[in-house]
């Protein structure tokens, strides 16, 4: 049945029941993406499922296994300031603090951001590097998928109609360091390219490149190589592999060739910055 107007569920179950009832109803969180699309007349929904009164979706909590659950409605400002996001988990905090500007960070949420899946967004490479999972709810129940599988294509996620992102869940942060290095034309713009790196104190490294293909660019061999050897030569070799795997657009933010040139530079900077934060943490 077609729903109409602004709907205010109080629980995730109520929200998913509404989304199941009307596949054209759209979930609304901070509005930073959806309302901009409505203003541009890309979308003109007749029903919005407002997630703003669902307590479960708000805030960052530690799970029993030490993992960190970032509720889908958690605003960027809160994530950027969270004292829980330490060590390897700090990559998500660093990315949150570089999204758009302070005013938009007061509004936008992690669930809304990743559901948009614009390749130039800051969270996608960060949550891939953090080895996070995305929790998804529907009337059929909940499922968790790796962040890498959540991002499917340009502006396309693994969500199917009736589903809702309820949380991004990070594995228990390891002591170590992390960095998110973003190159943008001006402060607050989408990334022309970005690099997210987590290094555990034991040496294990995970990297992901943003805005250089339909989904965050990550590669198990690159991670394995950089976990063993982080010399300049090793980073150069790893970056060459990522450049070969990249599929960047030519657009107003930069040519595909320019983006390929950025990958080694941003990766090196992110690796060194992550190592430096590791050193600080252990000083």
């Amino acid at each position: 049945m077609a729903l109409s107007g602004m709907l205010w569920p109080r629980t995730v179950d109520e929200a998913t029941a509404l989304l199941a009832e009307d596949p054209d109803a759209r979930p609304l969180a901070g509005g930073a993406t959806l309302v901009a699309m409505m203003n541009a007349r890309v979308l003109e929904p007749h029903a919005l499922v407002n997630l703003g009164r669902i307590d479960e979706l708000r805030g960052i909590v530690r799970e029993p296994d030490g993992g960190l659950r970032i509720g889908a409605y958690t605003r960027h400002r809160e994530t950027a300031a969270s004292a829980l996001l330490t060590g390897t988990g700090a990559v998500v905090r660093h990315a949150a603090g570089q999204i758009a500007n302070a005013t938009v960070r007061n509004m936008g949420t992690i669930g809304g951001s990743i559901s948009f899946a614009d390749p130039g967004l800051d969270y996608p490479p960060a949550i891939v590097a953090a080895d996070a999972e995305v929790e998804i709810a529907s009337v059929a129940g909940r499922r968790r998928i790796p962040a890498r599988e959540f991002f499917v294509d340009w502006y396309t996620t693994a969500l199917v109609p009736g589903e809702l992102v309820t949380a991004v869940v990070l594995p228990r942060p390891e002591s170590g360091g992390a960095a998110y290095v973003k190159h943008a034309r001006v402060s607050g713009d989408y990334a022309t390219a970005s690099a997210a790196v987590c290094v555990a104190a034991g040496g294990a490294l995970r990297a992901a490149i943003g805005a250089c293909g339909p989904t965050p660019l990550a590669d198990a061999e690159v991670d394995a190589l950089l976990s063993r050897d982080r010399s300049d030569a090793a980073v150069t070799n790893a970056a060459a592999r990522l450049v070969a795997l990249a599929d960047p657009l030519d657009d107003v933010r930069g040519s595909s060739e320019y983006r390929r040139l950025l990958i080694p530079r941003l990766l090196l900077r992110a690796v060194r910055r992550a190592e430096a934060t590791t050193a600080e943490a252990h000083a």
Partner: protein
Amino acid sequence: MSAAVTETPIATLTLDVNGEPVSVRAALSTTLLTTLRDELHLTAAKRGCNQGVCGACTVSIDGEPMRACLSLAQGCEGREVRTLEGLGDDPRLVALQRAFAAHAAFQCGFCTPGMLVAARALLERDADPDDAAVRAALSGNLCRCTGYARIVTAVRAAARALKEPA
């Protein structure tokens, strides 16, 4: 220019705007900005990009600067909306207005209301911001006239003025 859209479901709302309950009718796709400007004739907040980029529509919602153009009117029930018109009792705002005038921190003035709302929020949490803090707090507010230097100078001058004994 009116961005009002009438095809989507209309509701009658009670909004808290500048401390007063106001009753308005708004379509589902009507933004708070359109309601403020076109229904309530509160025209300080400006419609620039309507995409959340330029900051000209910045208002305070629940005490924090937010984009009126990215807020739907129907989503604002139960929230405290304060526009520039409703912030005039705050000494920080008065100090900012005087400093903007004294330092010629505007030319066309289109961005000024958004700048003032964002700068007021900055001074509320940081009474003595340095240049970098001012620039960070206002990085979501575009000015196409001034080159920003005078705006930064004015915000810091306002902070100093607020610390002087009255």
